[in-house]
């Protein structure tokens, strides 16, 4: 994604892509993972998650498919595409740079 202007959205995209790097997951699973992995620090705004997933899918970064969940329920499961993997690398690099920059400023101040 090239929408660097919107930090919030860009951050959510990064977290989703990173989560799916571990393997295919449905929306609920993604939300749970982000929350758990961040030690409850980050809570995904659930209202933003599904629009983001569909948008990433349209951008070709994810692929969504209907499948049977473990409890016999039909669930839409997303997995990372090759393009999504490349984008993840870019976003991660960007984030690291921003984080380093912010940290430097904070230390300096």
């Amino acid at each position, binding site marked *: 994604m090239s*929408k660097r*202007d*919107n*930090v*919030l*959205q860009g951050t959510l995209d990064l977290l989703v892509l990173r989560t799916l790097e571990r393997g295919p997951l*449905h*929306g*609920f699973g993604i*939300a749970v993972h982000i929350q758990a992995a961040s030690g409850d620090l980050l809570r995904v705004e*659930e*209202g*933003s998650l*599904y*629009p983001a997933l*569909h*948008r990433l*899918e*349209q*951008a*070709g970064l994810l692929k969504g498919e209907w499948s049977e*969940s473990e409890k016999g*329920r*039909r*669930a*839409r499961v997303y997995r990372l595409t090759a393009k999504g993997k490349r984008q993840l690398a870019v976003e991660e690099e960007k984030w690291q740079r*921003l984080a380093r*920059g*912010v940290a430097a*400023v904070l230390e300096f101040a």
Partner: protein
Amino acid sequence: MSFLGRLGNLIRPGRLAREIDEELAFHVEMRAREHEAEGLASDAASRRAERALGNALVLRERTRDADTFVFLETLVEDARLGLRTLRRNPGFALATMLTLALGIGANTAVSSVVEAVLLRPLPYPQPDRLFALYQDHEAAEVGRTRAAPLDFLDWQSQNRTFSALAAHVGTGFNLAGGAGDGGGEPERVFGQVVSAELFDVLGVEPILGRRFRREENETGRDQVMLLGHSLWQRRFGSDPKIVGRTVIANDKPFVVIGVLPPGFSYPDKHYELWTPFPFRGVSEGLPINRSSRYLQVVGRLKPGVSPEQAQADLSAVGRGLAERFPENDGHTGIVMASLTEEYVGAARPALYLLLGAVGFVLLVACANVTSLQLARAGARRNEMATRAALGGGKLRLVRQLLTETLVLYGLGALAGLVFAQGVLRAVQAFGPSDLQRLDQAALDGRVLLFATLVSFTAALVFGLAPALDTAGRAADDAGGLAELRGRSVTTGRRHQRLRAATLVAQVAVSLVLLTGAGLAVRSFANLRGVELGFDPNGASTFDVVMPSSRFPDAIAMRSFERRLLDQLAAQPLFESVGATTHLPLSGQDLENSFSIEGYTPPAEAGDPTASLHGISSGYLKAMGIPVLRGRSFDGRDRDGALPVALVNQAFARRYWPGRDAIGRRISVDGPEGPWQTVVGIVADVRHRGLDAASKPEVLLPYVQLDPGFTSNWARGISVVIRSSAEPALVADLARRELARVDPTLPVIRPRPMSDLVADAVAQPQFRTLLLGSFALLALTLAWVGIWGATNYFVVQRRREIGIRMALGARRGSVLALVVGHNTLATLLGIALGAAASYALTRSMASLLFEVSPTDPATFALSAALLAAAALLAAYLPASRAADLDPVVALRQS
């Protein structure tokens, strides 16, 4: 896949909605189970899970948005949002709409005039195949002339490239009143005497009856008439049995053979009836020769023939005639010109100038709206930042802002149409009557389409910059972190630059308009200031035509003229009375060659030519034309007495420079005489127009004019009456006196001489007035723009100004700070505007009279005016800022 997938989703919205519902339902279910596991009751758990997801409807829509082309839906949504925003800011909405209405309205009105006058095709089939033909003379001062009848007949028979060639000449018809003629009043109607082919050339079929036949162009068979639709309706009550009836015109019976379709007129709407030209046989009124060039010629090209081929063929015909008839046709050729061009060409420069001017007005108006939008962007920062933070991407914000602008321009355009209708009405009511087809201008489909396109383009072009600017700042504000990257500072600077650029453009464009209008005003003042050579104040005029049926020869005509003038002179309210064959500024003139005793012109130049007018002895006094040397005509100069002449200054200066003209002899009838002795020199009269320098002119006593000339060329005379009575009263008295001399003749076109002067300046007055109004409009808009920009600056810097004042800054330094802020932009605008004016005003050179298109005084004055206006516009908010109470200013911010 993505594209097709979205397209599919757009086509099958139901399936998509169901899938999204299912996906979200799964999420809620999972989350609810989690909450249940934490110990919540199952319905409470579901509710909480749903709440976490937010408004289900909104979410579903937002999710769906990601999957479809929602462009159209969003557009409507954005437009609605735009309207709502405008309703919440009525001041902003009103200011921008008014500005745009003025800009778009002025454009629409002028473009409707341009469309009707210039762009609309002539109302004949395939008008681009129609051409006007002229005789072209090698002598540059003669140029192109109309054709003589015998030459026209040769053109017609010898050319191989026109499917038909026709000739015509305008004339007046006195329609007698009373029995046998529909019972109407005596009426003067303009008509055309034409060759039968005219209606073939124009491709027009009568709605009743038939066209002329070729054999009707012959004396004795030419007493037939075609009626214009308006005349048929007005005078003959649309009588369906009109064909075959006899109408008395100029005391002669004509049989009506047909009625032309509604809307048809040729050559323009003044002409309402057509009769055949008697080329063959003995004509009583019109000379049939090769030297009297009075026929207009028009032709239709054969299919497949190019204008170049036709011109080459005509040139060959012209060379042949020049060889066969060297006396009349030597050193002449034939030229053709597009009939459309002949018809509308003269109006083009002025109308394009006006179109350019309103284009500039629109630029200033749009720039004003842009700067208003930029100013408001400051106030909307919170709203925009919130939108961005709620997930509105930058592109989305830009689109929304652009849609808002489109709504704004759309409303402005709608209001502009009302304004345009008003302007158009005024222009049609007060515009020059000789601007062809002005009355047909209307806000029709093409004009509306143009207005829509202009508004739409302007909205996109002028809306994009503020939209990008606002959206960019919103994204930064929402980002929060962005400030650490220093982006806010750069966008802030960009914002400032954008505002400054808008201001520069406004000032520059306004200055161009102001300079152009200034030049037009000076030119018009010069025109009104010219020495007319006669005194129009207190002079009235009317025409009388002596039909050949009642006045068979010059003797009868002279006798009538004498009786009429004597009768009028006896009227106590009339101070002086006179008559002429060719009234100044009436469009009537006659060029004639003449000989000077003892002077042989160089062989290749041919005889010199001058205007030739016959006048009565009282004419000069009645017109107020000064006799500079010698004497005027008087009772001595009767028929059979010594032939005498008066010449104007231009004549005396040209042919007897530095020598006395009085007593010299000239002959207007060739070197065999009779010779006329010059008895006086009169002032130069602006005969052909206020902007046309006076040509050499010869005046002869009406009673001494050659009898053949009199009965051919001098049947119509203009009577001039000098009186302190009201023009309407003068006309009524004249009517009474004429009826006493001859009750059958109408008083034709009675009017004060000042009307002729007014008509002569109507077109320059019209364009000067419009150009001036547009320039004032632009200046006002630019003024508001500068005022607004300075005001914005004051609001933005209120805190800073407060601090400065609290620290002891004087009023003067605050004034300087605020006024100085926009000074650079204003000065840059003036410099650019002056340079642009220098480049652009040349295009109006042909419309200027005795003022250079780069007149330094006008340039300086316009720039000074604009600078003063700009200073005032900046001073008002500055002085308010300087009056701020620093405590209040600081507390407020």
